[in-house]
């Protein structure tokens, strides 16, 4: 019996170690994950998917800029350096198989310039990009 109890203690203790989250993963958790979920999956009717989707925007003209100018990104309470890091983290985590070869990471300077130009018709801009993506198939 004591041996069984000891095993259970070890199992319970191991399960109590919460995972550390920092850097762009933490910024994603605190500023994006509430809507976009931990795995980037869609919530149909409410939130579009990041996983399997976000990287494809880099395949068409204007897509790279769109990912920064979209309101949830441009208005995130993060400085340019942190925002660029989150974008690059998202592309790696949710779009690794979709981004075209040779794509360079976002820089703080690029993000700084793009987030100053907010989109006035977000849905329209997104629709145009999706249509352009459809034509590339």
């Amino acid at each position: 019996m004591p041996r069984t109890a000891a095993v259970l203690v070890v199992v319970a203790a191991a399960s109590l170690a919460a995972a550390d989250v920092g850097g762009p993963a933490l910024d994603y958790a605190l500023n994006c994950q509430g809507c976009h979920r931990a795995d980037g999956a869609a919530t149909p009717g409410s939130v579009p998917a990041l996983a399997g989707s976000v990287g494809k925007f880099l395949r068409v003209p204007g897509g790279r800029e769109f990912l920064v100018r979209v309101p949830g990104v441009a208005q995130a309470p993060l400085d340019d350096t942190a925002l660029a890091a989150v974008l690059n983290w998202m592309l790696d985590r949710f779009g690794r198989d979709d981004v075209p070869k040779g794509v360079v990471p976002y820089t703080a300077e690029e993000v700084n310039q793009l987030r100053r130009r907010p989109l006035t018709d977000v849905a329209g801009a997104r629709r145009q990009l999706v249509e352009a993506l459809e034509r590339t198939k």
Partner: protein
Amino acid sequence: MRDERRWIDRFVETAARQLAQRTSRRSFITRLGSALVGSTLPLLPVARAADDSRVPPPDDSALKGDAGDPKSCDYWRHCAIDGFLCSCCGGSQNACPPGTEMSPVTWIGTCRHPGDGKDYIISYNDCCGQSLCLRCRCTRTEGEKPIYFTSKNNDLLWCFGTKSRAVNCSVAVVLGVATKS
């Protein structure tokens, strides 16, 4: 066959009697069982945060007073909760009450655990599908932003992606430890 049953009966009876003699109702096993059923492991088929990054929460057993009471607004995880506590509504700080569905869309902040001093990432998922619970109403605002910053505002009802938009109560799920690096 009958002999085999008798052997099993004797074995189980002996084991049960030995266990009863060596342990008390206040024994370690009782406390471990309570911990497992209470919150540590996802054993029951009820709605929980559908989230791969979710991790077991820190140990609250050493916390004294309301900071360690999931039915209190002052419970450490509730530093930014706005709504009715599922812990008072037939659920827990991790699980929705039966008959409700946890919204996958949520708002996320951090709360400091008074025991270890670490900042934990907390997801305040609404449980949806029944009318307001009306028990244990709490309003705390650490890290909350005004309504024009919707993704960081907790006055909103967060029943999105659920069959019903009717909100019942809110959970406070630990997702991880926030670190600076």
